[in-house]
């Protein structure tokens, strides 16, 4: 039914809000830390990328569920 497509669309939007907020907060504190201590910029950058990939992984879980919904419809 078409309701599944509506659910997939709204679900994907909400997932993206969550992932965007999470990674935005992460990037903000990483930038601030790099500004405070430029010598540690390399370490901070590495850890920022790891944390961003983990949060993005959660976002992709939700996205895959939405794709499953849209396919089965």
């Amino acid at each position, binding site marked *: 039914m078409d309701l599944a497509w509506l659910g997939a669309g709204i679900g994907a939007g909400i997932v993206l809000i969550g992932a965007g907020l999470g990674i935005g907060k992460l990037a903000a504190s990483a930038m601030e830390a790099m500004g405070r201590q430029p010598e540690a910029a390399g370490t901070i950058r590495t850890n920022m990328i790891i944390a961003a990939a983990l949060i993005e*992984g959660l976002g*992709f879980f939700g*996205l*895959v569920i939405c794709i499953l919904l849209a*396919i089965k419809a």
Partner: protein
Amino acid sequence: MIEIIQDTVTVADTVHKSESGSAWILHHVMDSHKINFEPFGSFNLPHLSLFGIDISITKDIFFSWIVAALLIVLMIIVAKNYKKSLIPKGIANLFEIIIIFVRDEIVKPTIGKGYEPYMPLHLSLFFFITLAGLFGLLPYSTTVTGNIAVTAALAGISFFAIQIGGIKSNGFLGYFKGLVPSGMPALLLIIIIPLEILGLFTKPFALCMRLFANMIAGHVVVLSLIGLIFLLKTVWFAVSPISVGFAIFIYLLELLVIIIQAYIFTILTSLFIGMAVHQEH
């Protein structure tokens, strides 16, 4: 797992027969039994079956063989380069940079002492995932790691590596006893033990889903942008430049994502192995 693969085959069949936009996108990111060299023709791969289980050679299997063969040839060349002297010449320089990166930035900080037995595993994971993703960017080929069966197999390899590493270092019972932190009241133990056992399985599952979704997402976005040109049939001359421009941008982003995801898969595997081997932390 067989039902999921069966479902994919039925979905693929319905996709081939239907005509909607999503069918076109799905047709390009899913596995298939023929290699398309449009417009030069296509090449049908054989359907094989063993005791009723479908083990036919599909496009993803064929390309995973190509990636593996290329990797074997490259690594034999690099290994032979070290026979004469410890200083590499030529292409071994490039691989030495990457191998030292994997050793000093990924494996040594996370596993610590006794990291040498785990180096081949991490090198194989890193090189295979990077090369498979890069192959997906070429025309007429497919992303091997964009198939959830392949990423599930890679996550299974990580799972067994974690358990075997932990059991080897701490003994069979010692490893499972070490999963729960010491000095816990019995009431918390009832919650913590199932949680830890579940955690053993969710971590590789997350690895599998993360790699699969990252590889597929880039392709789906590029295909959607290009499909937009065909969807807006009458104004294609206006949509095409914007669409192709965005598609190129997402394509370059995919390149970055492939390398980052290979790094993330390898460093998370080594992190979990480090946590299993040195359980005191």
